[in-house]
């Protein structure tokens, strides 16, 4: 067998290779756009080639091997790391983040941050008054939106659609990447399930794009914002984000799109197949709508009590509650200090937003955060535990809607929340140690781990993360974004497989 016929058995390499090819396709499209209306077409093209070549090589010279749980975590986390690193190339080659007085490692860190924030659908950005979005060409802007779109549904889900060799392991891969308590099957075959997820996602994106175009956005902006609305990402092609249009109609479309993006795609699929809306039959979606409605009412009242007019208060409240509650992260502030700039609000409404930063959207959606289902089950679990003290001999179950939750799932949710808490506390301490104040560090860490985007204080909707965080702190946040996007465990356990491999090869454990 010749060298070129030899295939190295590595699931991580194979999945990462295909993912890189998808990313390269997005870069090629962006290069074409940039060539038509910008100045960095060649740079983005070079990035695309440099992404395609290793991607294709990995795809050609590797094959998926044994897929146990540790390998699944390694494959998913490894793929996301590789994609995020290569995803920074267009920014690097185009010199997007080069500013006077900063060194190359900082430029690389900024590019990496923007790439991770994009693919993880966080929406935190390096762009700001020192580095305007409006100065960028259409290719870079569309590439930035594309990163969120591809990251929203999941790169690995995309890979599963074209990788029949994985067979049943596809569910494990999707489950490890999908937001929520596990992957749902929409079809008998996993590839079909993954494809159906992507069809739904693409359909929702197209609908939002048409609606945004209808309410006055240009075709370019409509498509770009549809990408980041369906993915609940929050990147915009404008420095003032949605505040640029200062239009209630645009904000309405964005909010509806965000709520749909943050609802379970399984519900969308069931709605389409049964030809009737089933969303309100789902207890999680109902709780989610109650949470958004209650928060909106509370924030509106608090803003009114601070002297803002009722109409302005309602508009500012509903948009910011929805955009943070869905982990969207868009802003409707027309400038610093205006109604929509929530960092200038009183502490009361900001505390409500802080709670929303934690909660996030529904399971099986494109949103981040802890997820409403986990909070609802957590509350039910707390109620059961308190009742068990009152009735020590009673057999009490945790219920979610009308169904009983299995104990292992309840324990898994409890475990998730403990680890989330540990990461928030330790992350806040580390980020604060790197020079960030308490509120910015705390909300920034929660926002990054929950893939929310803007945070409070110095990391508000009109601010750049360069102003609020030092470069090492931004790298910590980028790591937290990836950990949060993959629902903690894949990133935390990704080194188990390499460790086992080393252990087998060198037998150091026995030694």
């Amino acid at each position: 067998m010749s060298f070129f016929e030899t295939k190295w058995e590595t699931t991580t390499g194979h999945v990462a290779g295909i993912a890189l090819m998808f990313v390269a396709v997005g870069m090629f499209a962006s290069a074409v756009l940039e060539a038509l209306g910008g100045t960095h077409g060649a740079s983005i093209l070079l990035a695309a080639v440099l992404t395609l070549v290793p991607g294709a090589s990995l795809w050609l010279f590797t094959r998926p091997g044994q897929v146990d749980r540790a390998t699944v975590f390694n494959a998913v986390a490894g793929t996301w790391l590789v994609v995020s690193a290569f995803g920074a190339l267009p920014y690097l080659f185009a010199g997007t983040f080069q500013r006077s007085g900063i060194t190359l490692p900082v430029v690389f860190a900024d590019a990496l941050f923007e790439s991770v924030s994009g693919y993880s659908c966080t929406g935190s950005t390096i762009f700001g008054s020192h580095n305007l979005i409006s100065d960028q060409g259409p290719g870079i802007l569309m590439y930035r939106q594309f990163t969120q779109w591809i990251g929203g549904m999941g790169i690995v889900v995309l890979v599963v659609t074209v990788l029949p060799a994985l067979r049943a392991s596809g569910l494990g891969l999707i489950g490890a990447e999908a937001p929520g308590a596990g992957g749902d099957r929409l079809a008998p075959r996993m590839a079909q399930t993954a494809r159906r997820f992507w069809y739904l996602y693409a359909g929702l994106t197209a609908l939002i794009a048409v609606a945004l175009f209808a309410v006055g956005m240009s075709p370019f902006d409509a498509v770009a914002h549809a990408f980041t609305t369906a993915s609940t990402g929050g990147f915009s092609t404008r420095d003032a984000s949605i505040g640029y249009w200062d239009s209630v109609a645009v904000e309405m479309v964005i909010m509806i799109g965000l709520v749909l993006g943050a609802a379970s795609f399984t519900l969308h699929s069931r709605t389409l197949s049964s030809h009737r809306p089933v969303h309100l039959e789902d207890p999680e979606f109902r709780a989610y709508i109650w949470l958004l409605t209650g928060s909106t009412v509370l924030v509106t009242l608090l803003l009114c009590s601070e002297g803002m007019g009722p109409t302005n208060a309602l508009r500012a409240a509903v948009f910011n509650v929805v955009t943070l509650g869905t982990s969207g992260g868009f802003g409707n502030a027309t400038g610093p200090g205006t109604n929509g700039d929530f960092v200038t609000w009183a502490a009361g409404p900001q505390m409500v937003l802080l709670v929303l930063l934690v909660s996030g959207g529904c399971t099986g959606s494109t949103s981040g955060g802890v997820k409403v289902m986990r909070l609802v089950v957590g509350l039910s679990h707390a109620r059961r535990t308190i009742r068990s003290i009152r009735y020590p001999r009673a057999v009490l179950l945790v219920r979610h809607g009308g169904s009983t939750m299995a104990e292992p799932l309840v324990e898994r949710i409890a475990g998730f929340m403990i680890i989330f808490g540990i990461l928030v506390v330790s992350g806040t301490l580390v980020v604060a140690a790197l020079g960030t104040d308490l509120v910015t560090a705390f909300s920034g860490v929660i926002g990054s781990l929950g893939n929310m985007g803007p945070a409070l204080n110095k990391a508000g909707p009109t601010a750049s993360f360069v102003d609020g965080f030092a470069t090492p702190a931004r790298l910590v946040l980028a790591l937290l974004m990836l950990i949060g996007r993959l629902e903690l465990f894949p990133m935390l356990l990704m080194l188990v497989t390499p460790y086992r491999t080393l252990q087998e090869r060198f037998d150091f454990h026995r030694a």
Partner: protein
Amino acid sequence: MVFAGILLVGRVQNPDNIRPADVLATTTLGVFLAVLLLAALYLLTGAIQSPDSALFEATTGITTTALSVIDPRDLGYGLRFLRASSQWIGGFAALLTGIIVLPFFGFGREFTDRSNSANHRPLVPDKWSGVRNIALLYIPCTVLVWFGYMLARKAPFEAALLAMSTLSTGGFTNSPTEFADPAVQWVAIAGMILAGSSLVTIWHLVRGGGRPHRQTGLMLYLGLHGVGVLLLALWATGPDLTGLRQGLFVVAASISTTGFPMSVPGNWAPAAPVLLLLLISVGAMSGSAGGGLQVRQHRVLMKLAMREMARQLHPRAVLKVRLAGRIAREETLRQIVVLQFLFVAVVFATALLVAVLGLDLVGALSAAIHATATAGPVRTLSGEIVDPINWPSSVRMALLPAMIFGRLSIYPAVLAIAALVRIVGNRIRPRRRYLARRHRASS
């Protein structure tokens, strides 16, 4: 009040069957009544003029939270003693709740020191012996610290008041310059570390049943002090000897949740206040008078986090959590997880409330954490101590439930509220039914 108490005892019949939840709810009621009694005393003696301030001072006293709104120098000897003894009694009540009430009627029974063996006498062989043994440790320790303060040239009366506030992790002081003398600081540091240590561990060591270095909880607790001092020296106090001593004082006051005030001059790095809030949330050892979520609960949570990671790789494995050589029951683990959930929920709810009532975000978060962990004093981001008298009255009132929740390890307070809701519900429902019947008849 005494008359009302005697009347109540005479009129009320003992129930045949006392359920655990009733004991826990009664504990809350007891604390609540003690707060009301103390507030009434403050008002009746004229020590405090406004009812809200009296209620706040009484609550901070009984719950051993060092957030005082009065200047003790304006008070006579009797009232100063009353103020310090309220904390001392509150600390004793906290010990009884943590070591006897909760394990016997709530959770963590397997961690109670009950087993009798040839070379070991347990702290809590039964409930009443447990109360006696706890008193046998609490009183001599207080006397020991009292002598310590007197050796550090404190007047006997002042030293007694300070010793009571130290051992109860209360944190009330007699004057702003209470800890100006380094010798007093050293005694306070030793007293606070002692107060935050588990009485079960101290009992073991005193009775010769164990060695300090083999007590994992104690080692973690002391280690936390070490790490805290090093980080605080890095971020606030500076590495010189005075700085280290001041750092150790602030760290011990935070971890034990005693909250004695110590102004640390210099530039505070942004991480310093975060560190102190973190230490306050971690809190003292379980089985001490200290507040916070406590060290044992954190150990369990860390072990649960590790177990969950292992379960991700081996979903069908049967993995048990061990603590102090004993396997923790799944029910206890669930209760500890929910305790953490409730602790965070109380902090967020309180922070939201006080933010709405006028505090800024940092102040709201700090005040909520301090109140729930029954610690003090609240600091600004630059390390300056905040005087709660400058807070609006509504903010101080909003902090009271958090202090009581925190002091009672949350569960008893939640059960008391549940019982209250049930009683009110039962009162309302027959009336609703009656009204509905009358409405039907009239129509």
